[in-house]
């Protein structure tokens, strides 16, 4: 028996090792949401991000000059917009007061810097330099001054990994700012798409897309992008709508995390509604 096993091992060890490792990989693929695996991931990326943050800063210094120039320009533009918005804000407050509406515009945000990015066409992620110590939790939206960047996926004490818009695992409910029509947005590996949009929906190239209040992940309207193309299939009732995101995930360096996670109260209410027999 031992001789037989020894013969099999010597003859097929390459294949046996391959099969074992493939089985282990497939098992791990099914265990991604296992808390134990999540714990190992938090420790691994938390310790590694400390090292990468130092290196990222070193290589990033060369780009700071250009970034400063662009920021000065954006600052000037924002200053003009701000003065106009201030005027509108005063009028808006008065009108809201007259109607008895509650103001929900102020959201707590935490600034962060990207310390590394894992670029892949399908699973684009970024590591940022804030973690649970600053109150960051999985599910919080990551934004830049232009718009939505992604969602926090995992957190360690000092660092967090966020899935960017260009990650196939991130699907969001978004809406057309013009006519408030909702749809599901996802990254298909090449383009940011709004999928299964009924042809009857009035979407035009150039429409602004923002996150929808109906989303259980991001229940506040954050700018996402602009409709760039409408793929109208000749047959069928649904359209595919391409979106050009406001923020380019590849070049963004400084982000903000909105300290807001999905509303348990709202979710519980919805769950109770569906549970009712």
């Amino acid at each position, binding site marked *: 028996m031992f001789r037989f096993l020894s013969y099999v091992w010597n003859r097929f*060890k390459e294949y046996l090792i391959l099969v074992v490792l493939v089985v282990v*990989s497939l098992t791990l*693929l099914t265990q991604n949401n296992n808390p134990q695996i999540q714990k190992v991931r938090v420790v691994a990326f938390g310790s590694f991000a400390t090292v990468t943050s130092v290196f990222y800063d070193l290589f990033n210094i060369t780009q700071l000059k250009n970034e400063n120039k662009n920021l000065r320009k954006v600052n000037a533009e924002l200053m003009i917009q701000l003065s106009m918005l201030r005027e509108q804000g005063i009028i808006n407050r008065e009108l809201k007061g007259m109607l008895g509406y509650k103001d929900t515009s102020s959201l707590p945000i935490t600034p962060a810097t990207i310390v590394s*990015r894992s670029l892949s*066409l399908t699973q684009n992620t970024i590591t940022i330099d804030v973690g649970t110590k600053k109150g960051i939790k999985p599910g919080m939206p990551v934004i830049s001054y232009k718009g939505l960047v992604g969602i926090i996926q995992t957190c360690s004490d000092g660092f967090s990994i*966020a899935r960017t818009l260009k990650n*196939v695992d991130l699907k969001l409910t978004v809406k057309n700012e013009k006519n408030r029509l909702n749809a599901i947005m996802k990254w298909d*590996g*090449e383009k940011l798409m709004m999928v299964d949009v009924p042809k009857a929906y009035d979407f035009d190239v150039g429409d602004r897309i923002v996150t929808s209040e109906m989303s259980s992940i991001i229940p506040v309207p954050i700018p996402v992008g602009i409709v760039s193309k409408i793929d109208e299939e000749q047959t069928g009732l649904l359209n595919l709508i391409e979106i050009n995101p406001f923020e380019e995930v590849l070049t963004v360096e400084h982000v903000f995390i909105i300290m807001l996670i999905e509303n348990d109260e709202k979710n519980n209410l919805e769950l109770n509604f569906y549970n009712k027999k």
Partner: protein
Amino acid sequence: MKLKFFLPLIIFFPVVIIQLTVIPFISIQEVVPDLLLITVVYFSILYGQVFGTVTGASYGLMFDLISGNLIGSSMLSKTVAGFIAGYFSSETRRDKYLYTYSFSLVVLITGLIDALIFSFFSVIDFNTNILQVLFNHALMPSIYTSVISILVIIVPYKRTFLSENR
């Protein structure tokens, strides 16, 4: 213990730091070269198929853990890539595949397989155009990786050439 068993682990950290911090700056249309794959192929040809397969699995798993990828996806693709690269390893063929431009060709082949398996777990759905996936998600990154892998051949070759002419 032989140094060769620790060598992949020692090399992993500088390689992955470069992959996550420097490589994004040289991306073309979000296509980046995969330095980990080049390293796995190198070890696989140098030390054989079993070593390459295990190195591929370890590199893939560690990369999945620290990069936020789906855990197991890189592990699976790099395991198979290491295994395939091992076919180009033998006493007689080692130098041919390690120190000539054939190395880039091996990287291209394994890169295609690696990217295909990795994409399979990420983008394949009922609406996917397989040819498009092949081109965008496998061919482009593999070509870029194989071009970068030329450095692995040129740098040691140049060093040998210079020392011989001194």
